[in-house]
């Protein structure tokens, strides 16, 4: 009798534990987006996580995400940025240009450098034309850039 009660209690506890986890997973992107929205600078780790959420609809640890993005050709094989280093516009632009196969900048097709990746993103209206590849990105800017990327992924529309 005691064993039966114990089993029922354990099963219920496990179910409640997992339902809580599922719920928190569901709220992951809302909490993440609102968590970075007011940041003046975002990190490489945050950008990689956001990028995975947008493009793959899932996200793992930083190392897993990087491995996945290297495999997909979005990041270089020699990528060695730490997840806490601040994100500059060039790296993000290069990731976007590779993923979306941007053709907005002829120079980027010839010279696939960060500088021209930024210009390609500007040509596609993903970034604005008053920035350079070394500029840091705020949380609000990252959200806006990623919104642009998701619209292009969703609609297939490129300007």
């Amino acid at each position: 009798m005691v064993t039966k009660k114990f089993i029922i209690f354990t099963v219920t506890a496990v179910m409640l534990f997992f339902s809580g986890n599922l719920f928190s997973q569901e709220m992951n992107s809302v909490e993440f987006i609102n968590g970075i929205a007011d940041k003046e600078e975002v990190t490489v780790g945050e950008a990689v996580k956001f990028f995975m959420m947008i493009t793959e609809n899932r996200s793992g640890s930083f190392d897993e995400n990087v491995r996945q993005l290297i495999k997909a050709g979005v990041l270089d094989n020699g990528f060695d940025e730490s997840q806490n280093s601040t994100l500059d516009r060039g790296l993000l632009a290069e990731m976007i240009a590779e993923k979306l196969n941007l053709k907005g900048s002829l120079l980027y097709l010839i010279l696939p450098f960060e500088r021209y990746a930024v210009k390609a993103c500007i040509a596609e209206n993903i970034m604005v034309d008053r920035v350079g590849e070394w500029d840091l990105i705020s949380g609000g800017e990252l959200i806006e850039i990623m919104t642009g990327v998701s619209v292009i992924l969703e609609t297939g529309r490129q300007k």
Partner: protein
Amino acid sequence: MKKLFIMLTICAAFLFTYGIAHSAITVQSVKGEAAVKAGNQWNQLQPGQTLAEGSKISTGVNSTAVLKIDNATITIKPMTMMKIFKNNTAKRESAVGLKFGRLNAKVQKIGKLKTDFKISTPVATSSVRGTEQDASNGAMKGPEFIAIENELEIETATGQESSISGDQSFQQSPDEAKPDPLLSDMQDSAFQPLYDPNNIDEQPVQDFANSDLIGGGDTGVFNTIDNLITEPQEQETDTTVNINVIWP
């Protein structure tokens, strides 16, 4: 007994009138992650759920939510954060604040009734009367309003007004639309201590805080007022520069 009956009737009438004036804001549909903030926690929105004035709503990646506010239908696009400032059905006035992201608002016109639906961002507000509009706001590009149907009236934080129609859009860079420097006196007086409260003209700040633009001074949404007080705006001043050119 009679007294009690009268009191109950008055209470019921008051509650009924209040209910009509502030009719429920309901969630029509949800796709993916869409949440309402309660305290410091985000709770998933459910179809049919009612929301109160002051609710902050946010959507996640690849997620949308549709709200019914009075006679308006608001579609909240992915990665958006907004707040319902006002919903007064008696006056047919509703206002939402868009911190970041994209919205589509369809405001149904009911006969000759005057309706007013406002979407506010820190630098501009659009006012809709029986029409459809797309609104977006972001840190880089600033607010953009597109009049999909009929006419849209736009007012910027600096008081400029314009109207657009027929698929036209209005866009304002966040850099261009900073409100007039309210603390210019402080910058000129080098001998006054910085942020001396006696040296600040508080009335414009108070007016701005009470304006419809930020829906009665919400501190959490845009932080505009804090920025105005803590960060004196840079001013452009005319300066005479003498250049003497000596020909070799």
